[in-house]
C-alpha cells in the first residue's frame, strides 16, 4: 500500500509539520510506504511528484484549508481528515483510511 498526503493549517507553522511527521511515523510503523507533503509557511515541503501521486493507493489530506495541486490526484481515492486528529491519533487515522479504500 502506497500512501501520499498533504498537511496544511491556518498559519502553516506548527500543526502542518506536526501532522506530517506524526502520520509518516505511524504509517511506517504500520508497514506502509508513506510520504507527506507540507503546505505551510515555507511553501511546499517534501512535495509529492506526479509520479508518486500516480502510484499512490490512497491520498490523505490533513487539513480544512485550500490545498494547491489537487489535480495531481485526479481519479485517486482522496480522504480529508481533521489535522488535530492526525496529531492526536495518527495510527488510528491511517488504519481507518486504509480500511475505507480497501473495501
Amino acid at each position, binding site marked *: 500500500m502506497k500512501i501520499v498526503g498533504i498537511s496544511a493549517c491556518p498559519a502553516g*507553522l*506548527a500543526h*502542518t*509539520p*506536526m501532522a506530517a511527521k*506524526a502520520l509518516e511515523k505511524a504509517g511506517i510503523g504500520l508497514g506502509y510506504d508513506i510520504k507527506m507533503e507540507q503546505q505551510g*509557511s515555507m511553501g511546499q515541503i517534501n512535495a509529492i511528484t506526479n509520479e508518486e501521486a500516480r502510484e499512490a493507493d490512497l491520498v490523505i489530506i490533513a487539513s480544512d484549508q485550500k490545498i494547491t495541486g489537487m489535480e495531481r490526484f485526479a481519479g485517486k481515492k482522496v480522504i480529508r481528515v481533521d489535522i*488535530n486528529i492526525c496529531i*492526536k491519533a495518527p495510527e488510528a487515522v491511517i488504519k481507518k483510511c486504509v480500511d475505507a479504500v480497501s473495501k
Partner: protein
Amino acid sequence: MLREEYLFFDVDVSTKEEALTFISHKALELELTDDEEGLKEDFMKREEEYSTGLQDGFAIPHAKSDFAKKMGIFYLRCKNSIPEWETMDDEKVTDLFALIVPKESADNRHLMMISRLATGLLEVEFKEIVKTALDKKELIKYLKQFISKGEEN
C-alpha cells in the same frame, strides 16, 4: 530567536487571555513588537480558528503577525494550569511554546527551526526534558541543540 530571556518559569496566569497578554507584553519589552495589543489580537485570532492546545499539558500559541518585528520563540511554564485552554487529550495546559513570526517572513532557516520544535512536541522525551528542566541555561542549550539537529529522523 531562542534566548535565555525568552524562557519564563513560574508564570502566574490562569486564563488564555492572561497568557497571551503576558506573551505580548514580554514581546514588547524584548523588542519583538512595537504594538503589544495588535500582536495579542493576532494570537487570539489564530486561537479562534482552533485551539493550539496539544497533549501532555502543552500548547503552542502562534501568530504570523504584521506587528511582529522579529521572530521569537518563548517558553512559559505556568505556576497553575490554564483549564479553559482546549487540548487534544483534555490535559490542562501548563507549558507553552509561543511562536512570534513576522507576517511576510521568508526566513526559511528560522521557519525550519520552528517546524523542528513543533515536531519535538510529538516526542515524549522532548516534552519530559522541557517540563522538568530547572536551569534556564541548560534548557536553552538543549532547545538550541534540538532544533538545529534538523530532520535527520
